């Protein structure tokens, strides 16, 4: 479920220059890239930059203070700290390069194949990866030190293998998320080989996360490499940042400041790698976060212009409702002045296509707009009280008790970690304040009422143990459990099969009549409207274009948009007549 969410909400970096641009347009990314570039250049041109050879020693400059040719002073053997830092960059980066190459090549390749082909191969590879991940890598490197010899490069190679699981898991998860995408099926139908699908489609989509991981692993390897050298492992004759720290540590009580420079070099290099990774990640997640609005537009909550009392028999009256979400340029209105009237015991259909604002209108009535969303103006009179922009605490007292909600997707709207019984009794205990035992009795009655063949079994089941149709009945049971006056149902049957839909609609109709509930039914399906609604409001682009009695609406629609929509309904078409053709010679 998590990967599906990520799939939908993270726009991929498209365009060949997208990745580079995303780094350079982010100020921190730019700084990081510049710093990293500088370190790389220093490493390459070390002999030109360093004033001394790394192992030049001047005996009278042991632990010397900065100055007199030694820019940052001398170390414990009288060598120039600055020159050693410069050469250290070279050796440190070589080690990091080895680790990154090994881990990314091994990890990404195995991840691609495990993810794409799955099956036994995946099980074995994942087991190996889990095994590697459960080893404390530093301890293993220490244990292997004698056999690997003093060359730090070989240790870094082994470390690369130990870090490969990071790439493996990342790649495998990405591939698992991508491989069932329909465009992979389409590529297969087009005749692409598996290898070309992996290279052409999958690698294209997963490259950004892999680059982020490369950056992170480079950072880790620099830290671990310095750690090993700090412990005295590796060839001590080669200047390295970790080795310099070891030297400084040995002289710490004499010159405490000498520990500063090598550590700073490590930190700055690693930090720029991390910042680089963050810059790319930020770009990837752009669509994911609520936009931080630099200067929030002033909320001019207009007092309701019409304050005349709500007519007799009307439960809910929405007047000129405007709902907006903050964007960089100001408030974007998704509902632009909607007015609705709902009488007691009436079913009002709210119909429209996607983006018409019907669901946002419903969420506004519940006071449950998504993050950032606000009612900008207008009023929602519920039982003679304006509940638009009511404080959350007051709104909460209405929800469940007086206004209830049935969502669209039955499975994702039940908490997977709790039994149905708990989820059914929790609102009753909270809202009605009845005892758990009483709530349980009621829940079992409700489950029987919504058509569960075995209420007790459903009561004790977890959500993943029941079907979608049953889950929707459970959600309906929960919604009506506290005898609400108003039920807001958002596409309650859209996710269900037609035969199940017919049964659930029947259930809703019976319950509505039994309890004399008022219902707002949000839907895009005119068949559902014709089946259950008394009156209908048709929405388009955040506005209601027509409100009409249900028989009137279908018999004599007034607005052109309604006519167009009804014209698009596919009922009652004359079937097509087949004209035989020969199987051959089909012209394109």
């Amino acid at each position, binding site marked *: 479920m998590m990967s599906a969410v990520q799939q939908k909400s993270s*726009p*991929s*970096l*498209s*365009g060949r220059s997208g990745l580079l641009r995303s780094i350079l347009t982010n100020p921190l990314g730019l700084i990081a890239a510049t710093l990293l570039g500088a370190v790389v250049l220093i490493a390459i041109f070390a002999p030109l930059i360093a004033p001394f050879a790394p192992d030049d020693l001047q005996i009278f400059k042991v632990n010397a203070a900065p100055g007199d040719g030694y820019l940052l002073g001398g170390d414990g053997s009288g060598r120039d700290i600055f020159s050693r830092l410069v050469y250290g960059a070279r050796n440190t980066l070589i080690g990091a390069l080895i680790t990154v190459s090994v881990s990314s090549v091994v990890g990404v390749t195995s991840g691609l194949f495990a993810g794409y082909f799955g099956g036994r191969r995946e099980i074995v590879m994942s087991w190996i990866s889990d095994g590697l991940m459960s080893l404390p890598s530093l301890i293993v490197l220490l244990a292997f030190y004698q056999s690997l010899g003093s060359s730090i490069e070989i240790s870094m190679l082994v470390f690369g293998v130990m870090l490969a699981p990071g790439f493996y898991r990342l790649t495998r998860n990405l591939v698992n998320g991508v491989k069932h*995408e*329909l*465009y992979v*099926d*389409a*590529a*297969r*139908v*087009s*005749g*692409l*080989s598996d290898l*070309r699908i992996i290279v*052409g489609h999958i690698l*294209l*989509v997963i490259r950004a996360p892999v680059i982020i991981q490369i950056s992170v692993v480079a950072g880790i390897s620099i830290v671990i490499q310095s750690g090993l050298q700090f412990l005295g492992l590796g060839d001590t004759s080669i200047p390295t940042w970790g080795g310099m720290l070891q030297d400084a540590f040995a002289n710490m009580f004499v010159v405490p400041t000498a520990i500063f420079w090598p550590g700073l070099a490590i930190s700055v290099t690693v930090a720029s790698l991390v910042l680089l990774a963050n810059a790319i990640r930020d770009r990837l997640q752009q669509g994911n976060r609520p936009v931080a609005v630099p200067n929030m537009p002033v909320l001019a909550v207009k007092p309701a212009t019409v304050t005349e009392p709500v007519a007799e028999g009307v439960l809910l009256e929405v007047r000129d409702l405007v709902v907006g979400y903050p964007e960089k340029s100001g408030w974007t209105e998704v509902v632009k002045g909607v007015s609705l009237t709902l009488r007691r015991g009436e079913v009002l259909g709210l119909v429209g*296509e*996607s983006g018409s604002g019907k669901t946002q209108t419903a969420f506004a009535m519940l006071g449950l707009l998504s993050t950032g969303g606000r009612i900008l103006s207008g009023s929602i009179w519920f039982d003679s009280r304006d509940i638009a922009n009511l404080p959350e605490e007051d709104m909460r007292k209405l929800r469940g008790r007086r206004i209830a909600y049935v969502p669209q997707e039955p499975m994702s709207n039940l908490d997977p970690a709790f039994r149905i019984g708990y989820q059914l009794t929790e609102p009753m205990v909270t809202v009605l304040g009845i005892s758990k035992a009483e709530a349980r009795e009621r829940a079992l009655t409700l489950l029987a009422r919504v058509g569960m063949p075995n209420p007790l079994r459903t009561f004790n089941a977890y959500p993943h143990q029941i079907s979608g149709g049953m889950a929707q009945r459970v959600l309906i049971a929960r919604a009506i459990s506290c005898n609400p006056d108003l039920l807001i149902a958002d596409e309650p049957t859209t996710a269900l*099969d*037609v*035969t199940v*839909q*017919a049964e659930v*609609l029947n259930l809703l109709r019976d319950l509505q009549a039994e309890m004399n509930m008022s219902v707002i039914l949000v839907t*895009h*399906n*005119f*068949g*559902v409207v*014709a*089946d259950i609604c008394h009156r209908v409001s048709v929405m388009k682009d955040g506005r209601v274009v027509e409100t009409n009695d*249900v*028989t009137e609406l*279908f018999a004599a629609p007034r607005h052109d948009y309604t006519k*167009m*929509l009804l*014209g*698009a*309904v*596919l*009922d*009652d*078409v004359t*079937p*097509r*007549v*087949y*004209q*035989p*053709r*020969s*199987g051959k010679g*089909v*012209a*394109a």
Partner: protein
Amino acid sequence: MTDGVIVECIDVNTHFGALHVLKNINLTVRAGETVGLVGESGSGKTTLGRAILGIGPVSSGRILFEGQDIAGIPPRDRKGNAAAIQAVFQDPYTSLNPSMTIEDILTEPIIARRQAGRAEASAKVRALLDQVALPSDAAFRYPREFSGGQRQRIAIARALALEPHLIVCDEPVSALDLSTQARVLDLFVEIQERTGVAYLFVSHDLAVVRHISHRVAVMRGGEIVEFGDCDQVTAKPQHSYTRRLLLAAPVADPVRQAERRAAFHALAVGER
């Protein structure tokens, strides 16, 4: 190839582990014809479509395409016209790779089948976009710049790139808005009348299937319970499940819907 039959499924069976998801499927599609495949979730209709496309398993039976058996042969190993069988999938948001331009998407099948080089394939893009009524400057843009309906047009253009004799359409209009849905269906019909391509049209929506099909097969639990002319199946269904399915879908007319609801109820009570 009598009667212009281009696809013939003969006793096709598919098992997923212990599950028997396709049971002795027999089905034919004729040249230039649309066969609607309707059923509820889990009925096996998508599995059958994928088996014909070569991206789903076949445990036994034969699938003859213009005479040659293509059952179990993956698309890249198919030869001749069988290699040109194409697909249009349900979700226009995931059926186009977000990192590729429209031109890359449309030329991919042509290049993969080595029908033309990159330059020649690119030259075809304009004609393909034209066929689905999209402007030719669409070629250099990315899928995210298009609406759902437009994306589905792009997917149709991709399916047409190899000039196929058969396109398997898996719920191609289910994710679209009502008004877009009607226009895309009209496009399907128009293309069929012009090119003579045959469709196997998989959908859960009987109204959609009735709109576009010449013949309709109703699936349930991995079996075809009824297969016949569209008018016959959708107006005078023989099988009780087809009747139930037909009556369950609400129609946009309150008076008639009330009658149908009563009939659905009666059917349900009668079955008990």
